[in-house]
């Protein structure tokens, strides 16, 4: 067992873990943070994408011990005081999810994409999301949602708290 201290969505946890424990299992099974799902065992689907010290990672491909001393942000930590981020709103408004299983990872990957490239072209969005698979949407509305945020059609993430109520 190895001692770790990890801050997840703002809360710091101290735990003894087996070194082999995957970060995603730590989040789900130990912390009960089941908002981050698992979709594959080969690092392909990206459903488990979270942020580790501000950069997107596939939490199935990180050991919990590797996250020792780090900050993890999951989809459950995005909304502030019940206000969704711009990406969450855009996913809703553009119908960028159906079953929703890929959505947490897709949103986390899209955050990373926009951080690195705030004004991407449609092709850059597609390329930037290549590590996240969706089986429902055909991706078109996901691309639209990300572009909508980039183009300011939805309030940017840092202004989420003051954003207006979204209507149909």
């Amino acid at each position, binding site marked *: 067992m190895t001692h770790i201290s990890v801050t997840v969505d703002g809360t710091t946890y101290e735990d003894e873990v*087996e070194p*082999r*424990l995957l970060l995603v*299992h730590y989040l*789900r*099974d130990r912390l*009960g943070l*089941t*908002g*981050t*799902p*698992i*979709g*594959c*065992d*080969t*690092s*392909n*689907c990206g*459903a488990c994408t979270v942020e580790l010290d501000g950069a997107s990672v596939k939490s199935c491909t990180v050991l919990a011990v590797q996250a020792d001393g780090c900050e993890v942000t999951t*989809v*459950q930590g*995005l*909304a502030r005081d019940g206000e*969704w981020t711009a990406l*969450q709103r855009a*996913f*809703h*408004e553009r*119908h960028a*999810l*159906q*079953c*929703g*299983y*890929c*959505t*947490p990872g897709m*949103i986390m990957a899209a955050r990373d994409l926009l951080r690195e490239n705030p004004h991407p072209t*449609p092709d850059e*969005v*597609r*390329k930037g*999301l*290549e*590590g*996240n*698979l*969706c*089986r*429902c*949407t*055909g*991706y*078109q*509305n*996901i*691309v639209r949602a990300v572009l909508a945020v980039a183009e300011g059609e939805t309030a940017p993430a840092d202004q989420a708290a003051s954003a207006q109520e*979204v209507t*149909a």
Partner: protein
Amino acid sequence: MTDQAVEREVGRARLRKEDARLITGQTNWTDNISVTGLLHLAILRSPMAHARIERIDVSPALERPGVVAAFSGRDLAEGLGSLPCAWPVTEDMVLPDHPPLALEEVRHAGDPVAVVVARDRYAAADALEAIEIDYEPLPPVLDLEDALAEDAPLVHADKGTNRAYVWPLATGEDFEAVRQRADVVLKRRYRQQRLIPNAMEPRAVVVTPLAASGEYTVYSATQIPHILRIMLSTVTGVPEHKLRVIAPDVGGGFGSKLQVYGEEAVALEVARRLGRPVKWTESRSEGYLATHHGRGMIQDIEIAATREGRLLGLKVDLLADMGAYLMLVTPGIPILGAFMYPAIYKMDSYEFSCTGVFTTRTPTDAYRGAGRPEATYAIERAMDELAAEVGLDPVEVRRRNWIRHEEFPYTSIAGLTYDSGNYEAATEKALALFGYDDLRAEQRKRNERGDPVRLGIGVSTYTEMCGLAPSRVLRDLRYAAGGWEAASIRMLPTGKVEVVTGTSPHGQGHVTCWSQIAADVLGVPFEDVEVVHGDTKVAPQGMDTYGSRSLVVGGSAVHRAAEKVVEKARKVAAHLLEADEGDLGFKNGVFSVKGSPEARKSIQEVAFETFTSHDVPDGMEPTLNADHVLDPENFSYPHGTHLCAVEVDTETGQTRIRSYVCVDDVGRVINPMIVEGQVHGGLAQGIAQALYEEAVYDTEGNLVSGTMADYLVPSAADLPDFVTDRTETPAANPLGVKGVGEAGTIASTPAVVNAVVDALRPLGVHDVRMPCTPERVWEAVRAAQPEQSSEASRKEASA
């Protein structure tokens, strides 16, 4: 409240009620469920395609830390019957036993042989390695034609054959006679590769027992909680009324969760034995072996036509890969396609035959479209071949054969009555959006200059039968259940509404759409409607979600139930207003007396008055609640025209989709945003079959494309933007809807492959096997002889 005008909901792009939880991670996937004392199952699977189990000893696993129990198939045999097949398509169909854990033989790589129960999933996975098992290899059965040979090794030795069934259909004139008088006879062989459905949520099941009363709650990532409950009761002997099945949040299905799986039965049995709650969750790679596959057919198609390109007859012979066992609807999948080969075309003769073949591979069953994509592929590919043969544009050859809009309702040669449609309108719209003539001009230029990157244009004019299904038709097809759907509307005392549906959504947006339907009929705000589903205790009656049936059958049932509520409310309102029922109008949720508009009662007020029941009509049951179980009278028949332009790099064989246009007629639209999303997703899956995906087996029967790294599910970077549009001819059902879940998948595969072949046709290529990988394209170009005569024969034909 009473004066509030309620906007008409149906037809609006309402944002989904489902989203809030899904985008914030407040989900309830089956694997999220945790209860006190939960134990974890891990399943040991056969590494071989076919073998006899000589010896199995699970006891060493018990020595491993954290292990609570371990069972072989024999250990559990007493409590577990054979897994069900609900569709014996012929009277003499061969139905082998299918034990949830293998007993004597394993018949496909991944066939489960033992289960370990441990305190956590890590301990369970570790303990699998301790199980001792000796296999005596048996010959794999992989080739569909070889499997039918006299001396072929058998998948099920006790059955004496690998032939599961032969299912024939012949209508119209004798095909032989039609062939005799045809100018053109074309025979083609197409292969439907096996596909792995890949719902993003892997399967999972949790069973919580209440030992004292013998009750069990089964949570499963399933499309079919209601069917599962009945079938699990049959398999395990737990009485149906002691079983509660819940489909919590379910992350996609595409047919793969329309199944009664061994793991569900094993989990229930283990929970019964141990009196402890248990959970099993598959890993993706495990699912590739254990979750049923789709497609897997050899299609021999023969068309007879005139030299003007008019179809005279069609003959189809299928060899369908059942895999190792017949699962819930395995044998029926190709039969669903049997009626769709004639598609939108008129002809004099149709002959069909399907032979189901056992192989030592993962069983096949429903995958998005289920039989209909295969049929559409074969006929749409063949129509392109006919066009080439008689020197017509592929669109023109279709135009010469399709049912004209004024001919509806039209009974197809296969015996289906298409209630509505307008193929001309959809095609004209699609051609215009696509810029068909310009692309053809560019194609000619590229061909003339010998551009190594060729342009290809593919068309697919499809129809499908969905809205499964009229129960009597299902009887005639020997399906073991009906095709009705149930809905209940509960008017709550405060005027809010609960809609209980027997459909079981897993991404389709039923909560939103059913709210729209109910809100319109009841005249209540969209926000005031909640939809309850997926729990046999709460929604006791249902036939679940598959086959683009939910809206057509289930949505219609909601509509009817809501109408019943209004009729009951009308009685109460009339009584309260001291008016004649016939004098009451009902608009935007308000009853008012004709001629005296101040005399009015809202449906919410009526709901409360009915709740108190202080003053309801004599003899009236004091409730507005209403149920409706709707058995559809016909299938529904969406249709459309899809056009695809591809650029094929003849040097590398790489295909790139340049543009994709589809115009679909799915009847009346409840929510255009959701319809568009369904089309997008369907297109992605159909395109993936055309270009990327294939379950590849080696000669030993191992699944070579055994992980998501090897089986190529396309990402956003691999797919184009789609242009989607619609035409609308209302269906002859209460809502006028046709269903949209499968349309995109059905139509797109032939559109893409037709485009690839169209690009290469001047080089002498007539077919590329799916998926059209770069290597297959390159091989096809290498093997082909340039078709010098194509221009000449075109002139000849048009002369």
